[in-house]
């Protein structure tokens, strides 16, 4: 605040005319308005087309792509496609393509999160059928993606058990925004001195409504419950 005139600007001199003649124009708009407008249009389109979209958010290395690979193989009958978000390379898209499902890769370059416009631009390439499940694997990052609505039905947080029990407390925004939490790499817990129950308790402190799925995807453990939840999401858009 200017200590001379009390205006909102930093200190400045007052011997010439400038913003004392300024006038206020109320805007009252959400900072995310640009993204949210596109996201809402996408949501309406997904609803109309019967497509259940899940936005997967987790740190790099949490096991998002591996979870998807195993999930896709567990749900052979369902129509599923994937949008892969990474800063660079099409490595994840190639892993998904190897499962026989449709996939597009979005590279964000320096960008740390996906925005709704990126989904809108690439959606047409997937040729989604009615009653499809669309996974969006966000850029590996537990912070920024939490803020950006992609028109999804639900956000799913993915945290590996090796990341530590306090991860949900340290990165609460994504846990708060998510409908479900998948705790991956459960088979590693005894080897990394991790307490999955405490991790889950911490997550529920941040978000008591969270559905939680502890899995060891490669071993198939916990995958039935996770896949049942996915089927429910599909039922929801029927």
């Amino acid at each position: 605040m200017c200590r001379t005139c009390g205006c909102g600007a930093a200190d400045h001199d007052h011997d010439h005319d400038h913003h004392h003649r300024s006038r206020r124009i109320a805007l009252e708009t959400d900072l995310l308005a640009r993204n949210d407008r596109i996201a809402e249009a996408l949501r309406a389109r997904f609803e109309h087309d019967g497509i259940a979209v899940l936005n997967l958010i987790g740190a790099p290395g949490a096991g998002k792509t591996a979870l998807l690979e195993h999930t896709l193989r567990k749900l052979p009958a369902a129509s599923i496609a994937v949008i892969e978000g990474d800063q660079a390379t099409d490595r994840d898209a190639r892993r998904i393509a190897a499962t026989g499902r449709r996939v597009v890769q979005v590279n964000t370059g320096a960008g740390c999160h996906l925005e709704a416009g990126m989904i809108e631009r690439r959606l047409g390439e997937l040729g989604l059928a009615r009653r499809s499940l669309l996974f969006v694997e966000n850029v590996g990052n537990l912070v920024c993606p939490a803020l950006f609505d992609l028109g999804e039905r639900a956000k799913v947080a993915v945290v590996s058990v090796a990341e530590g029990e306090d991860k949900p407390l340290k990165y609460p925004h994504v846990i708060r925004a998510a409908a479900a939490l998948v705790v991956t790499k459960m088979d590693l817990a005894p080897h990394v001195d991790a307490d999955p129950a405490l991790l889950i308790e911490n997550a529920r402190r941040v978000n008591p409504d969270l559905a939680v799925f502890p899995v060891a995807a490669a071993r198939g453990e916990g995958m039935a419950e996770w896949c049942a939840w996915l089927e429910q999401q599909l039922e929801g858009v029927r």
Partner: protein
Amino acid sequence: MTAVHELALIESVVDEVVARIGDQRVAIVRLEIGALAGVSVEALRTGFDVCIEGTPIAGASLDVVEVAAVARCRSCGSEAALAAYGAPCACGGFDRELIAGGELLLKEVEVY
């Protein structure tokens, strides 16, 4: 494309301001940011000048009104400051609904 989400938000602010007020000269952009909105006010301040350079609002200054977080406990009904998500209510409950502190608002501009 931007590297942290605060920069993406500033770009959004520029677009919105230009769309709403046209070519009037902007002196101040005033934002209202909640303590638990998931946005670093420091990063907004740091990035603002650089981000608006070369845009129609270049030279404007940024004023951020910070809003403290308050939650209502769904167990006991009391309202109290919320230091962080996951912090318990005095009654021990964790089911706390944010009633202030989530703001992420382009409040107003001052134009010459």
